């Protein structure tokens, strides 16, 4: 038996099909994964993401600590509540995890890290935090819901006291704020507008049911995966891991090498990569024929070099299979993919594949 979020019984009662995800028993779908996907693109869906780990960091040197710990630079964060997406690297520049960090006050930041890596991350963070006198507090008392879709923010308003609604609605993209006993952030993993809400575990079930009553559809990890891939977002463990660096994982944009004086874990290794140029890169693919691109399938590029699919699925919005693949660096328009012994043609696409519900590829 895996770990359970505070909503496990509720998922079972709603007929969810449960699967193991990083050691957690999570809903992969309720009725139809494809219908759940469409609900998020067209209206609103709610996901239980309580298996992810919320970590509060406090202390006078928290900002300094984070500028050392992660590859993106929290020095950029000046507005209270502003979020930043970053990789956390090991000394050889390999990716330990991807995460979101929120700047709360000069001595308080909040991290959200992945479920499958939470134990590893906590150990790593605690070890390095000691050098800066930063206190690390795992918030196991919190559940987390993601409400996503064009109607998501509007529907969430009904869950808030009237006096809190204006402030929540006014949150700009990628900013969070404490609203009553909840922390509401305008972030997400679907490519749609919406909120991720961190709330006391005991309140999660009522909030979920209240959202259902407003027409917000219960959505599982299956839809979460098709939505994030359409939106061009990486999945840790598939698209990057400790053996890959950000530049070969489509995450070069999250690495802040400026200012040059900022020392962070993995910097030297990355500078060697940028000096030589990365030998491999992560690209988007769309299958031209019918079929499904899947992780680990071999990719053949013009000239004979080979690569591998890191994430693949069928895109319900595009009605075609899409994927990320790691291939030798260099411009390429078309590749072949070995699908069960047959070579099928795929074209390269610069992610995302879909933005705000609209396909970006024809």
């Amino acid at each position, binding site marked *: 038996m895996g770990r359970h979020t505070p909503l496990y019984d509720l998922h079972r009662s709603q007929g969810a099909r449960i699967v193991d995800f990083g050691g957690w028993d999570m809903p992969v779908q309720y009725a*139809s994964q494809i219908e759940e996907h469409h609900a998020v693109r067209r209206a609103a869906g709610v996901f239980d993401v309580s298996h992810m780990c919320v970590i509060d960091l406090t202390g006078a040197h928290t900002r300094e600590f984070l500028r050392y710990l992660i590859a993106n630079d929290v020095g950029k964060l000046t507005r209270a509540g502003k979020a930043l997406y970053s990789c956390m690297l090991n000394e050889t520049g390999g990716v330990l995890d991807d995460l979101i960090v929120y700047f709360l006050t000069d001595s308080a930041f909040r991290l959200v890290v992945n479920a499958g890596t939470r134990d590893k991350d906590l150990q790593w963070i605690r070890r390095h935090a000691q050098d800066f006198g930063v206190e690390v507090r795992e918030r196991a008392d919190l559940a987390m819901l993601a409400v996503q879709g064009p109607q998501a923010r509007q529907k969430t308003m009904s869950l808030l006291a009237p006096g809190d609604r204006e402030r929540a609605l006014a949150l700009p993209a990628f900013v969070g704020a404490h609203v009553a006993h909840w922390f509401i952030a305008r972030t997400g993993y679907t490519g749609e507008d919406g909120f991720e809400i961190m709330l006391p575990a005991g309140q999660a079930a009522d909030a979920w049911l209240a959202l259902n009553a407003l027409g917000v559809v219960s959505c599982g990890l299956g839809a979460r995966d098709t939505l994030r891939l359409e939106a061009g977002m990486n999945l840790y463990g598939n698209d990057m891991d400790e053996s890959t660096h950000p530049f070969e994982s489509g995450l070069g944009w999250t690495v802040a090498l400026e200012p040059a004086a900022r020392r962070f874990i993995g910097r030297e290794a990355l500078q060697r990569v940028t000096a030589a140029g990365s030998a491999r890169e992560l690209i988007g693919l769309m299958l031209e024929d019918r079929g499904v691109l899947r992780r680990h399938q071999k990719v053949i590029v013009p000239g004979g070099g080979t690569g591998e699919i890191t994430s693949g699925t069928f895109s319900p919005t595009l009605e075609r*299979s899409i994927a990320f693949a790691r291939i030798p660096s260099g411009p390429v328009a078309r590749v072949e993919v070995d699908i069960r012994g047959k070579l099928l043609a795929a074209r390269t696409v610069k992610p995302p594949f879909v933005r705000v519900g609209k396909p970006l590829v024809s």
Partner: protein
Amino acid sequence: MSQVPADLHYTKSHEWVRKLSDGTVEIGITDHAQHALGDLVFAEVPDKGRVLASGEACAVVESVKAASDVYCPIAGEVTAGNPELATAPELINQDAFGRGWLLRLRPASAAFGALLSAAEYEELLRAEGS
């Protein structure tokens, strides 16, 4: 508990067989199978004229989750693959025993003995814990 029409024959690998009035048979995957696979997004069916042995992989159904081979329940020659599945593989989810049929074939012999009856298939599902 999934549907198990009484007038069909079944296999342990969750295919069904229907006798048609012209002596050919129609083959598909069961309601239990489509439910286990989830939303189907692709189905590859054999071409007319293909000769199949009993137990030979004759079709592929693919959901977002995984690709699954379908095994031919009885030997014969394919008379048709379902043309609707090229554009609407979800018919298998919606109507596994009807419009979601995969292929039709002319059996090599009249022997149906190796197939399960509806009662036997239901028993198999119960034993599997469905």
